[in-house]
């Protein structure tokens, strides 16, 4: 019985994962649309989100590919919602040229 009880958290997580997986494809489709307001939203989110923990690095510090990965890393570490992370990434990639 103890073994089954220990497995309950995993079953709960598996259920949540199954439910949430539907959202992954939707999120990937949404990011392809060019939204002119994304730059402004990204700039604002970059300023208020990153500074919660550390100084903000310059957009020129990283290439597009590096920002793509770095922002995902920070999305996970700082619990940033995916749409906000995409805005920040768009702003940084548009500002590092």
């Amino acid at each position, binding site marked *: 019985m103890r073994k089954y009880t*220990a497995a309950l958290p*995993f079953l709960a997580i598996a259920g949540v994962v199954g439910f949430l997986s539907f*959202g992954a494809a939707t999120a990937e489709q949404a990011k392809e649309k060019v939204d002119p307001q994304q730059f402004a939203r990204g700039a604002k989110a970059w300023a208020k989100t990153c*500074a919660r923990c550390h100084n903000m690095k310059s957009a020129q510090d990283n290439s597009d590919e590096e920002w793509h990965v770095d922002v995902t890393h920070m999305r996970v570490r700082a619990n940033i919602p995916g749409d906000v992370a995409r805005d920040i990434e768009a702003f940084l990639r548009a500002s590092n040229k």
Partner: protein
Amino acid sequence: MKAISYWGIAASMATAVAISGLTAPLYAQDADEARLLERLNSLESEIQKLKEQLKETKKESSDTKKVAEKAEKKAIKAIAAKDIVRANSWHLAGYADVGIEFSDGDNADTFTSGKFNPAFHFQFKDIVLFESEFEVQTSNTGETDIVLEYSQLDFLLHDNAVLVAGKFLSPVGQFQERLHPSWINKATNAPAGFGHGGIQPISEVGLMLRGGVPIGEKLFTYSVAVGNGPRAGHDGVELEGFGRDDNSNKALSGRLAFMPFDDLEIGGSFLNAKIAPEAEEEGDGHDDEVEVEDDHDEAEEIIAEVAQGDYELWGFDLAYTRGNWDIRAEYLTADLKGLGGDDDHDEAPEPLGWEAWYAQAAYRLSGVTDSAFIHRLEPMVRYGRFTAEGDHELEDELSEKRFNVGLNYWVSPSVVVKTGLEFRNYIAEHREDDTRLQFQLSYGF
């Protein structure tokens, strides 16, 4: 003398009254018309002014619209100009630090080799991220220590949910997960009780579900982990991620946080676990020791017969980061009950307890003067306390009050030179207090 004709006077007065009575309305009508005309002129003038203002506003609006359209075109062009990112992309990040420390206590004045923490991030599309960080440093005896800080796969399930699997930094509290890298930490080291050997869990091995959920303009975040959990150890409980569990009970930990404003974050953390009695890697002949072998089955069987302890931790933290201010506070308390008890003899070992907290404030002097040098300075202050209860040896070894005051110079947003004074006040009477002067150069990359 000519007699006064009262009738004549009366008649004259009557005539005058009659004339004035007839002409008064005429005069009043003229005055009203004059006022009306004056009012009309005034209104006409105001309308004219309003027309001019409207014209100016229209022009400004048109100019603003042109600027906005230009900015929008620029934004679209900039966003469209971004490079194509490969399906498999990666990034090398991390940090390194070196330092020197002078002490008036028993410790010798010393250079510190510091740490080199490379972090590797590999991402496949917007589906999965693998991230791993090593901590490499030279030990006091000259050996090179390499520790795997974390090695985790992050599955991006949803905008509001990420599933993390592997070894990850503990989500409990804010210092360990977010603030411990030396280029982020405002002081040269961790607050008392928040580093290795402290109350704050360092890492965990297992699964974690985490994310951020917007509620209107506010943000709620969650991180909930199930993992192998802590083990009994030298300092009572070792709160690091272990590659294999020594009991089947999984530890549940996490942090929930809320941001009522952009600048304020309030979080609450917890950890609940079963702790098996301390195991020895190699037995030295004592009958009561529990030996852990490679296959672990025998050891787990023996451990199952000994009473496991209940470890419970909770705490809260807050962060206020507005403008030049960076203010943080964190509190954690934990206790361990029933470890090593014997049900047959009704023996209840004394519970162990830990408590730690700190509060710190830093202020960046940018904008205070015209001096570029002063703009880069950041004074900081931190006070904290760590106490242990239930075991005299542990109490003497761990309990202390720590006060830090420092001045940081930011060479760039991720390169900092820190100077600090640290006052350590040990609670054990036989331990001499200690004051340290510290310098550290840290670079986050």
